[in-house]
């Protein structure tokens, strides 16, 4: 795997998020003018389902973003460092951080994103304390410390 592969995967999530945000917003605007629009195409789907989708979109794509980040670190640990164990993310991030001499500020930022992800998964927190784009930048900056190829 290359570091660029990881960046490309983050970019894909970002672009998909933007496209979906536009598409859902557009359909909602159209359905403002024609409330029967949604039901014409999908039986059982209501406008409020779309509103829920729009409300949760950022959180949904944030989780995709973090999954890409976690997948990259686990791939690097397994193939780049030949580690057989799969530690929890906190330990994995610290271990790679020490090994690659990642700056303390960049470590702290990436951990803030990890904690947010845990709160969403385990504490059912709905609100993002950081924006999707902040999270993307923090995770990408952490990944920039990985070698170009492993």
């Amino acid at each position, binding site marked *: 795997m290359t570091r660029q592969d990881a*960046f490309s995967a*983050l970019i894909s999530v970002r672009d998909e998020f*933007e496209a979906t945000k536009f598409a859902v917003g557009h359909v909602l605007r159209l359905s403002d003018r024609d409330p029967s629009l949604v039901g014409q195409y999908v039986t059982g789907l209501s406008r409020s389902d779309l509103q829920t989708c729009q409300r949760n979109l950022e959180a949904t794509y944030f989780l995709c973003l973090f999954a890409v980040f976690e997948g990259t670190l686990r791939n690097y640990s397994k193939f780049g460092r030949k580690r057989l164990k799969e530690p929890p993310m906190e330990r994995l991030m610290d271990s790679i951080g020490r090994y690659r001499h990642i700056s303390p500020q960049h470590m702290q930022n990436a951990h803030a994103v990890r904690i947010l992800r845990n709160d969403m998964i385990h504490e059912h927190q709905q609100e993002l304390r950081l924006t999707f784009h902040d999270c993307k*930048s923090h995770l990408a*900056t952490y*990944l*920039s410390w990985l070698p170009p190829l492993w």
Partner: protein
Amino acid sequence: MTLQSDDTQHWQQQRDQWLGWLDQLVSDIAAWSEHEGWGVNREQKTVTEPLLGTYSAPVLHVQISGGRIQVNPIGLHMIGAEGRVDLEGWPTLNRVKLVRRQEQWQIVTDSNVPLRLPWCEQTFVQLAQDLIGMP
């Protein structure tokens, strides 16, 4: 002359005009970057659009202390714009889109909010530093 060849000529003219805008944009950014002492590297990428076909467009990489900026043309036919070029920072992946509207470049953030600033050297230099998260 057939309708088909009229269309071909029309899209070819549009493509040439688009490539002219891109060349001017990339030349401006390269000059502004060199003025700041930032290294620039120009290359070509292949773009395919349904109406314009496949063509080669310039891409610019700007090296700044602490990161880099990629000036990446996306295409001419975009929703709500006549042409789009992305300015993307590395490693932050922060991005703004330069979209062409009313014959000038406008800056739009990823949140789809337009930055109502004139597209000029001062704006680019500040934007470049902000995109890579320079304090």
